[in-house]
Each structure stands twice: as structure tokens, then as C-alpha cells.
């Protein structure tokens, strides 16, 4: 097995893995955006900043407290989730009754503020974060680092877990019900405002989790979030925000498409997702998995 579709198989597998890694982040991020939008009707522009925050918290835990990656994997998302809960309580809660545009602008403002503060403190050059899983899988024709496989596996597990939680558990059914008709759910004695707050925290925690996982792969930099969030918006438009499974499949799928484009037509790799978005809008305006609202 020396070549696949005319390219060396080592390069092919390498790009496939890179694609799956990027796809894992797209999936985790668009999943969080979908959950937030589904329940709160808020487009969380700060999602990228919260992802960055996750990476920085992981870095700070290692640097100042000596806590390893594995601790950070649990602690950092929790800290970022608390940040999200505070943001919801202090700001977003007061914007549910006005035009949705204001919530978008608020989260955009928070994103700018977080990015600015991090740049002030750490500069833009990026900080290295040591790879916690040395070594890799030797396939004779190519070499795949363990850490990359770990990221793909964990991201997949977290995505499917979230899907199961929302679509198959009792608590998830409350969430979906509140999405359809919050007043009715409230009349059954469920504390909807608290549920909204915790949901926002959970989804923001997911962004923080993605940030921790990204830290050893990309450099920890204040710019990492804003670079990612725009692509993730395109992913969300392609998938349609209605479905959880839709965002997972679209996320991974587009990551792979982007990775393979890098192989066959390198110039197009940075725009391929936007081109797919244009095609989707032309052919299926509500997204691949979207519902007609």
C-alpha cells in the first residue's frame, strides 16, 4: 500500500488524521453552539473566546500550580463553565426579552474583551504546552502520535455522550421540551431559568474542554478562538442548528473534507468550507440537517 488515489499513503493518512482532529474541534464547538441556540436562542459569539480560555486555564494550571494535563482536562472545563454561568446570570439573562441581535452583540463584546485581556497579559506569539502522551502508533508506512488518536476518540465519545444525554435521558427531554415551549415546562414546576443557566454553563464547558484538548496540538494563543469561531459558524450554517447529531456529523465530515483538500488542492484548503457553505445555501438553504423554521 504505497499510494491512495495517486498520493503517497503516508501523506494521505496524515492529512486524514489532521482532518479528523480539526473535525473533532468543529464538532465539539458546533455542538455547543447548537445546544445554546436551541435552548436560549442566543448565538454565542463568545464560544471561541471560551475555547481560548479553556486552553489558557490548562496552561496556567500547569505553569503556576503544576497540575498536569489530566487534571486540567477536568478542572479547566469546570472553571470555564463557571465563567459561562456568571456570564449568563449577569448579562444574558437580561437580554432574553429583547431582540436576539443584542445577545449576539453582547457575546461579541465579551469575545473582544477576553481576547484583549489575554493579549495584554500574554502577547500574541503563543505559548507552548507539552504533549502529555508521548510516542505513537507505528503503521510501517506512517506514524500516528497517540495524542492525536486520543483527541479524536475522546471528542467522538463526548459528542455521542452529549447526544445521548439530550436525546435519550429524562433531563434531556426537559431541555428539549423547554426548547419547544418554555412556559408550559415552567407550569409543570421545572425551574426553567436555572435550567437555561446550567445549559449555557454546560455548553460553554464543552468549549473549554475543546480548548484544553487543543492546547498540546496548537500553541496556546489569544487568537486561537477567533480563528476557529468563524469556521465553526460556517459549519453550523452547513449542518443547520436544529439537530445535535447533525452538528457532530457535519463537524467531522467538514474536517475531513478540509484535510483532503489540503492534499489534492492545497490553495483551496482555507476556503473549501466556505465554498461548501455557499453550495449548501444554494441547494438546501436550511442546512443539511436543519428544520424549516
Amino acid at each position, binding site marked *: 500500500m504505497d499510494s491512495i488515489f495517486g498520493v503517497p499513503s503516508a501523506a494521505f493518512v496524515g492529512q486524514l488524521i489532521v482532518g479528523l482532529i480539526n473535525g473533532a474541534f468543529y464538532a465539539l464547538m458546533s455542538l455547543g453552539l447548537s445546544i445554546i441556540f436551541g435552548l436560549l436562542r442566543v448565538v454565542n459569539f463568545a464560544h471561541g473566546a471560551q475555547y481560548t480560555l479553556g486552553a489558557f486555564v490548562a496552561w496556567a494550571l500547569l505553569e503556576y500550580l503544576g497540575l498536569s494535563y489530566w487534571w486540567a482536562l477536568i478542572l479547566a472545563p469546570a472553571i470555564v463553565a463557571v465563567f459561562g454561568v456568571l456570564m449568563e446570570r449577569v448579562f444574558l439573562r437580561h437580554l432574553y426579552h429583547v431582540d436576539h441581535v443584542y445577545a449576539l452583540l453582547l457575546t461579541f*463584546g465579551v469575545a473582544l474583551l477576553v481576547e484583549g485581556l489575554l493579549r495584554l497579559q500574554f502577547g500574541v506569539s503563543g505559548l507552548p504546552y507539552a504533549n502529555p502522551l508521548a510516542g505513537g502508533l507505528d503503521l510501517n508506512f506512517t506514524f500516528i502520535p497517540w495524542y492525536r488518536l486520543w483527541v479524536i476518540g475522546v471528542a467522538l465519545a463526548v459528542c455521542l455522550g452529549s447526544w445521548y444525554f439530550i436525546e435519550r435521558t429524562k433531563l434531556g427531554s426537559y431541555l428539549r421540551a423547554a426548547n419547544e415551549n418554555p412556559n408550559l415546562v415552567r407550569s409543570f414546576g421545572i425551574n426553567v431559568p436555572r435550567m437555561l443557566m446550567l445549559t449555557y454553563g454546560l455548553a460553554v464547558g464543552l468549549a473549554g474542554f475543546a480548548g484544553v484538548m487543543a492546547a498540546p496540538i496548537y500553541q496556546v494563543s489569544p487568537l486561537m478562538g477567533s480563528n476557529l469561531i468563524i469556521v465553526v459558524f460556517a459549519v453550523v450554517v452547513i449542518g443547520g442548528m436544529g439537530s445535535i447529531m447533525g452538528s457532530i456529523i457535519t463537524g467531522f465530515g467538514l474536517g475531513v473534507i478540509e484535510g483532503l483538500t489540503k492534499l489534492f488542492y492545497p490553495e483551496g484548503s482555507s476556503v473549501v468550507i466556505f465554498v461548501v457553505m455557499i453550495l449548501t*445555501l444554494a441547494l438546501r438553504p436550511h442546512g443539511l440537517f436543519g428544520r424549516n423554521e
Partner: protein
Amino acid sequence: MSSMQRNLLIVGIVVLCLVPYVVYPLFLIKLLCFALLAASLNLLIGYVGLLSFGHAMFYGSASYVAGHVLKTWNVDGIFGVLAGVGIAALLGFLSGLLTIRRQGIYFSMITLAFAQLVFFLALRLPFTGGEDGLQGVPRPTFLGVISTTDNLSMYYVALALVAFGFWVIYRTVYSPFGQVLRSIRDNEPRALSLGYQVNRYKLIAFTLSAALAGLAGSTKVMAFQLASLADVSWTTSGEALLICIVGGLQTLLGPVVGAIIIVSMEHYLASFAEWVLIIQGVVFIIVVMLFRKGIVGQIQFLWRERAERRLGSS
């Protein structure tokens, strides 16, 4: 137009003509360009209810194309402006065909993604100069007679172009067409049920707004002789949005007041990029949480309240 508005307009024109003798003209030109960019965006958000998050693509692409035309063929400035406005309008029409298929929040995300596509094109296309941007654009003669080589005459050309843009916006907003746009903003299904081709109106408004943003971009490239990646980046779109909401949506003067505040702030903090971000973020949060009407909107509101009270007491 009431007599007070007319007096205000005359005072405004006199101030605008005299101010370059006090303030550095290039700074004023930057202010004018951002005011027009924000006003073009305000036309969409305030009067049609479409929040575009990608207006930098029209501003930036016009700036690149106008700069390229002026640099390659050394033609009269008006052709640069026409080329810039033309490309922005074309881009607005094409992207508008797809973006107006979705509403509300999706519209914002799609325009942002389109703008990012244009950003990558500006980075890669052969004539744009990549990371360095398009540099050394010559200051053209304008309409065959006006030389724009010194900053003062450039200021008056820019003032005329931007004033033309504002005039177009004013005429649009207070025309029957503008009435239909507002009815779409307030209740789209009703406008549809009254037989208005809502999507056609939206597309025309989007194209017009894009063309006006293009006018701002073309003016900017003539004055600063440079088109850079910053012009097409999402931070410029965000800045235009910030100017709009600080000044006040749905007001004609809001973008001007907003531009004065935001552009001056950035001017004084120019060497601290991160502070600009921090302050922009804080201003966004404060305006959204505390005064959503914006400065001009708030003043108009207080003014109207006072007038009503006076009417009530007499």
C-alpha cells in the same frame, strides 16, 4: 425637513468645511469613511432589520479594486471610485442572493462566513500584495480638474463623496421604498401578505448597502494610498457595528456620532492594539446592557418626551 433641521444642516456643512483647518485632514477622512461604512450598515440593521456581520468584505474589496485600478492605469479618481463601488455592489448582489434566503441570526453568521472567504481571497489573489496589502496607490486627479495630492483638497473630495453617500441613504430611508423596508423589518409576514416581494426588496437594500460601503472603501484607498488585509477582516465589520450601536440604530446621525467617538478612541490608543480590543468589548457590553438606543437615539427619545410633556402641559 423642519426649519430647525435645516438650520442644523447648514451649521453642519459650515463646520465640516472649516474643521480641516483645525484637525488633521487625514484623520477626518478616516472618520468620514467609517461614518459612511457604519451608515451603510445602519441602513440594513436599522431600516431592514438585517444584521450583517460581513460589511468589511464590501469595504475591503472596493478598497482593493479601486486601488488596483488607480495604480495600474493611473486614471481619473472617479473611475477608481466607480470600479470600487461596482465590485462592492456586484459582490453584494451575488452574496445577497444566497444570504437573504436565511433570516435573523443565520443571516449574521452567513455574512460573516462570506466575509472570511473574501478575506482569504484578498490574502491569496495575485494583485492584492498578500500580507503587505496593496501599497503606493497614487493620489489621482478627480473629475479631470481637482488635484488631490495635498491632504486638504483630498479632504474636500472625500467630503463630497461621503456626503453623496449620506444623501443616498437619506433619500432611500424617506422614500416609499424605505417605507416598505421598514414594514419588512417590523413584520415580514404582513409585508409579504400585502403582496410585497420581500426578498426582492431585501436584495435591493443589501446591494445598495454594499455599494455604499464600497464608496467608503474607495474613498479610503484614495486618501490613504493603501488597501490592507485589515480592511477586509472581521474586526472592521465589528468596528462598523460598534459605531452603529454606540451612535444609535435607526438614526441617520448615529453613525456620525459613533464614528467620532470610536475612531478618536482608536486614534489615541493606536499603539496599544490590545487596549483597543478591551475598550471595544467593554463599550459593546455597556451599550447593549444599559442604553440600547445609542447616543443619538437616546437624545431623540428625550427630546420627543420633552416635546410631548410640553404639549401636555399647555
